[in-house]
Every structure is written in C-alpha cells, then in structure tokens.
C-alpha cells in the first residue's frame, strides 16, 4: 500500500486540494451553523404547540363602539358557535370560561424583591390542553386543580414575560427572568383570602390570557362569585390538519371575528425560517461546489496516472486495490474538512446563541450534537460518493 501510494500520489495538485478544502470548509461551516440554528428555532416554535394538544387558534369578536354599548354583542351566542362547528376544517370548538372573582398575584424574586398585581383567569375545556407538563423539580405535573388544591398549574402569555423583562424589570432594576427560570419563581395567587401556589407550565403567543384548569375556574366561580354563567367572549378552535386553511380565515373575516395572538411574531418566525433555509441552501451550494471540485481534481489525477494504473492492472493489481489509494485520499480529505467545519461551528455557535438568547428569552440552544451528527453524515456521504466516482473511473480505465 505504501509503495502503491508512493507511485499513485504523483501528480497530486496541492492547489486543487487546497481549493476544495477552503470552499468546502466555508460551505460546511455555513451548513452546520444553519442546521443548528434551525434546530434551535424549531425547538422554540414547538414550545407553543407543546402547550395544547393540537393546532389551534383563539377568536374574539371585534370591539367597536356599538358592541361596547351593547355588551352582549361581543360574546358568542350558541348559534355563532354552532355555525363555526359546522365548518369542515374545524375539528372542535371550546368556550373560554372567565373568572368572575378578584385575583391578586404576588411575585417574589428573592432578596425582598417582587411585585403584586391584580389578575384575571381564564379556562378552556381540559381536552384542549395537554394532560401533563414537566414540573420545575423534574417531575410531571397534571393539568388539574380544584378550589381545595394548594397548587395550580398556569399557562402565561409570552408577552407578559417580555413586558416584565423589557418594561418592569428594566425600569425598577429587578432581574430579568428567562423562560427556563420562570418556573422557579413562586407566584402566589390570592383568591377570596386563600393563597394558592401557581406553577408556570408554559408560555403562549396565541392566547392573551392566563389559563388555569377548567375545573378550578368553575368551582372558584361558584365559591368566590355569584356562579352566574356568562356567554364566552373567546373561543378556541382546533383543526385535525397541520394548519388552518384559508377558508376558515375567509369565514372569520366575513363574520368580523378576530384571530388572537401576535401575528407579527408568526411573520417573524416565518422570516427566520426562510432565512435559515437560504443560509443552509447557500452553504450546501458551496459544499456541492467543493464536492465537484474534488471530483474533478481526482478525475484529473487519475487521468494523469492512467498509464501507471493500466500497468498496475496488468501486473495483477485489482481495480479495488488501485482505487483504494485514491479512495483513502478522498476519505482523509473529506473527513478532515468536515471535522474542521464541525470544530469551527461548535466554537462560534455558542456566541451566536448567547446573542439570540438576549434578543429572544425563549431561545434555549440545544446540544451541539446536531452539528457533529450532520458533519459526520455529510462526511460519510461525500466520502462515499467520492469513493464511488474513483472506483468507476479506475474500472473504466482498466476495462
């Protein structure tokens, strides 16, 4: 093998190999960076879906001078609900139940810091919410509570956290709170003189209210308020499809219903996804270019050594033995480049994710393992393809 390599390495162009290394390194780092960022953003956007069992939207009636004057007009009648239920793309419709009692929340941030505020609570039927959540102590927490419970699971709008971090905390000198840390700060709810410990199960961009279990609101309305049932001002709609189709959007527009949530957030998310697709695509184009550069370089090398290959074959060397030399060369170069790309991406990605965590508190970088897995897969793919090209070319010469 040593002699064979000594013979066949003649005519190796260091410039061509170097060109491949530089271009593939550039492309590789971009691809790995993009894939890791995609994974992290995807994780961030999935958090939303983890709260509720299906793809969902929340709708309200638009607020105008007329329905402000006639309060009932902003709530949904049974007829409205039945009409929505009849839509083919709607799988189920749930009514929001609002707390009719006074709720006071106390947030303690340690070292005597914290704040109090009046709140309101809402609930949707339990079938719209996942049954179990990760508790801050690592255990599982059920989505259930009654007025006799000491603890209540709650879901907060993400806006509230942003409002606190970028508004209240900034102006009062209180510490900012990440999504991960949020569950560790106790929130005490005072209802009718009774104190409840509330645990944040998750954050949502789509519902602008504080969600608690259905049973809790029902019982608390009976116990701490008159128990009078009001028509819902908000409805939650789910679909069996991945996303709602345009027909329901048209229907809602026509009816003057409004989809709740931060639409700009969705637009930003879509933009980030598109950007990441472009980044990964560009990186992949570079890598593909580099792939073909090495293919051409190896083909040229084989062509220059054609006579030697024919002589080796006529001496008794098999196509496989001859091809092995070039295959080893391409495997070493491919492995080295992807290893270097993975190392560079792993070194620089944490700085990027720190920056992203500052901009978006929900951004929690996943393990960098994905960089190494993708690098290993691409290295294997590239090396296999190069090896195949080498084998075919040597076989063609020896035929």
């Amino acid at each position, binding site marked *: 093998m040593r*002699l*064979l390599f*000594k*013979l066949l390495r*003649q005519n190796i162009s260091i410039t061509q190999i170097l060109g491949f290394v530089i271009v593939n390194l550039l492309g590789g780092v971009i691809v790995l960076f993009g894939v890791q960022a995609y994974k992290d953003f995807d994780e961030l956007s999935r958090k939303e879906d983890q709260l509720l069992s299906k793809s969902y939207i929340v709708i309200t009636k638009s607020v105008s001078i007329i329905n402000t004057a006639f309060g009932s007009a902003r709530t949904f009648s049974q007829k409205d609900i039945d009409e929505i239920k009849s839509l083919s793309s709607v799988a189920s419709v749930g009514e929001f139940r609002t707390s009719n009692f006074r709720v006071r929340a106390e947030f303690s941030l340690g070292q005597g810091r914290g704040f109090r505020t009046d709140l309101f609570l809402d609930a949707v039927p339990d079938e719209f919410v996942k049954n179990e959540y990760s508790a801050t102590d690592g255990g599982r927490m059920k989505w259930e509570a009654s007025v006799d419970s000491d603890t209540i699971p709650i879901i907060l709008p993400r806006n509230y956290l942003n409002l606190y971090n970028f508004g209240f905390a900034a102006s009062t000198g209180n510490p900012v709170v990440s999504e991960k840390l949020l569950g560790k700060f106790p929130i005490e709810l005072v209802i009718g003189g009774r104190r409840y410990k509330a645990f944040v199960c998750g954050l949502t961009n789509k519902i602008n209210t504080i969600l608690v279990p259905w049973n809790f609101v029902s019982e608390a309305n009976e116990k701490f308020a008159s128990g009078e049932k009001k028509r819902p001002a908000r409805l939650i709609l789910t679909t069996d499809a991945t996303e709602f189709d345009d027909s329901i959007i048209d229907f809602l527009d026509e009816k003057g219903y409004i989809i709740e949530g931060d639409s700009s957030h969705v637009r930003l998310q879509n933009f980030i996804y598109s950007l990441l697709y472009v980044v990964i695509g560009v990186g992949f184009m570079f890598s593909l270019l580099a792939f073909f550069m090495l293919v051409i370089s190896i083909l040229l090398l084989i062509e220059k050594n054609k006579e*030697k290959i024919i*002589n*080796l*074959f*006529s*001496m*008794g*060397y*098999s*196509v496989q033995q001859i091809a092995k030399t070039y295959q080893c060369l391409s495997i070493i170069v491919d492995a080295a480049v992807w290893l270097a790309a993975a190392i560079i991406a792993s070194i620089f990605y944490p700085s990027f994710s720190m920056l992203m965590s500052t901009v978006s508190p929900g951004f929690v970088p996943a393990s960098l393992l994905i960089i190494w897995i993708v690098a290993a897969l691409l290295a294997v793919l590239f090396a296999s393809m190069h090896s195949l090209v080498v084998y075919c070319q040597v076989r063609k010469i020896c035929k």
Partner: protein
Amino acid sequence: MIKSICLKNVNLKVFVGAPPAGAPSEVWGREVEFLKGRSYLLEASSGRGKSSLCSFLYGLRSDYVGEISFIGENGGELRGADCDFVKIRKRSLSMMFQEHRLFPELSSVDNVMLKSQLTGFAARRQVCEMLSRLGLEDRLDTKCAKMSYGQQQRVAFVRALCQPADFIFLDEPISHLDEENARIMSQMLKERQQSDGVGVIVTSIGYRLPYGYDDVLKL
C-alpha cells in the same frame, strides 16, 4: 493452478485472410499446447505477432479468432470471459513485457517490490540479492528513469520472477543484454523452473536467451 495452455486455431484478426509473408506459422491457426514445467522458444521475425500472442495468453488483448483455454490441475477448463485475469496474473501467469512497463519514478527495488508484495513472494533482501546477481548492486535505489535500457531489462526480468506462477512469459528478454548477463538470467530462470516446475515461454527475434528449450516453435 494451470497445468497447460491450449490454443485452438488461434490467429490474429489482422492475419485472417491476409497471412504474413514467409514460412507458415507453427502456432497461428494451429492446435498448440503449452505444458507446465516445459520450456518453449517462440521465434519469429518482426511483425509476426510475438508480443500479440503473449498479450492474448496474458489476457491483455482479445483481438484474435480461435480459442485459448487454460487447463487446471483437476482437468477444469477456463476460457475467454470465464477467466478472472486479475487472479490469474497474480497467482498463475507472469510476464516480462518487451517494453518493460516499469515505473520510472520508483527505484529498481521498489519496482520489483510493488509486484512481490502483491503476494508476499519475496522479501526486500531477496529482491536485492536477485538484482545484485544481475550486476545491479549499485543501482538498487536508483530510479528506473535514470537507468539504461539494458539495466531496466534486468529489473523487469527480476520482477517477472517475483511472484507465484505456473507459466512465465518472457517477451524478447535479452534484446539489450550482454552474453554474461544473458547467461546469469538463463541460470536464474532454470533455478526457478527446477524449484517450482514453472512453464517458460520465451520469444525471440533471433537473439536467443541461452536455454535448453524443450520446444522451439516458428511463429
């Protein structure tokens, strides 16, 4: 293991219908059998197809009519497309090419070792001894590109000996050698034939390798 090589009406395609001028061939268009353990001299003037025949037997070319078959020890017969020439060249047939086919960028020892290490036939020390016997002791590490044609011929000969074989083909092996080197070469070949019982097929344009041939055939 190949016991014999049979030629049945083998002829160069270019000779079909237009045979070369001169005496009729004792090989082309005839039934000939080369036996392992025996030595043959194929003699002919230039252009009678000596190198072509070697290439046909060695599986490098197939522009011939007729049939070439290899008979194994157990009587099995291999012919045409059935032959795995990579294996046959490695284990059964060895060839010293007329044009040597050495690698100019490698030293004489490395050229031989490249062949020898394929089967682990001879160690570097043995290769050096063989080259030294042919007067190349001071050229062992010299690149073949810097060697004379005669020196390269001796390297090519040693290379042909450094593999297991049933038949060794030598295509005009001493065209550029002096008598003394031709004699040593002949002696080395004899030793190999006696030790391993190989068949020897030598071609010559007139300047014969001095050897006690069992058969001399006019091509």
